[in-house]
């Protein structure tokens, strides 16, 4: 202990230690502020189910066209008219989408309102041009309803 008290060498090392620790304290304070900043803005991007709703919409549009060509194909081998087959296929698609979204903890409802008309039934027309679909999406905090979504089936 005696030698430690009398030993006055290494002053510059002790001083530079002080300077370094002060710089570190300053940096730590800055880093802490940087940690908080940007949390809420980035969290909003992550939490808002923008892509899920968009996919629900675009999948329904894509599948309406696939279902249309499929119902023409099936029409060749059954007695049912094209709109009737389309409706059956669409119900199938709707059930599958509901199951898929339920697996992510989201409730969706896709229901066919009408084909080629907007009064709740379909015209007994052999072709399908426009379908009206009710879309709802709910994930607990975001609630999306499109009643009806007008889908033009062109292919």
């Amino acid at each position, binding site marked *: 202990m005696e030698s430690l008290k009398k030993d006055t060498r290494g002053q510059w090392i002790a001083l530079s230690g002080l300077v370094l620790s002060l710089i570190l304290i300053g940096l730590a304070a800055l880093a802490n*502020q940087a940690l908080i900043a940007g949390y809420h803005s980035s969290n909003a991007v992550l939490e808002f189910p923008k892509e899920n709703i968009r996919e629900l919409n675009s999948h329904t549009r894509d599948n309406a066209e696939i279902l249309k060509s499929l119902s023409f194909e099936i029409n060749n081998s059954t007695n049912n008219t094209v709109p009737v087959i389309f409706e059956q296929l669409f119900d199938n698609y709707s059930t599958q989408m509901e199951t898929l979204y339920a697996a992510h903890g989201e409730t969706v409802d896709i229901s066919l309102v009408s084909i080629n008309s907007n009064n709740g039934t379909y015209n007994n027309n052999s072709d399908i041009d426009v379908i009206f679909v009710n879309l709802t999406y709910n994930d607990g905090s975001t609630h999306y309803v499109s009643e009806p979504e007008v889908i033009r089936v062109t292919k």
Partner: protein
Amino acid sequence: MKRLIENEEGVSVIIEYILISLICVGFFMIITINSDAVFLDTPNDVVMEREMSDVGNMMSTMITDMYLILPDNGYIDTEYRIPAKAGRETYIIDADVAFTDQIIEVISPSSGKKVRVTIGGIATTMPINGTASSSSTNHKISYESRK
């Protein structure tokens, strides 16, 4: 340089004691007078500035995202969570100025601090209005195409 450090003449314990005491007393006086400003107000200002602009950016992001997926016929509403206080103060999100200025304001009523965030011209095509207080429990943005 070496001579200056090793030269110990003119240094007595009592002088050193008085010098150190004076410096310490002066230092602590300054600290006591300025402690509130240095240790509380300045960090609070920095935190509020950042957190309020963060919340403003969040609102702007959410409104832009909602604008992208709005249904033609129907409605969309979403709940969001914000901290009850920025720094030590509550704040209000004000979107009533959005239509004229294309901005959202985040205001602290107690200190008058204000942060403005742009919403990228959305309000010209879609009217945006409403205010939200950070101290209320439920916050919601909604859109209805029929209104």
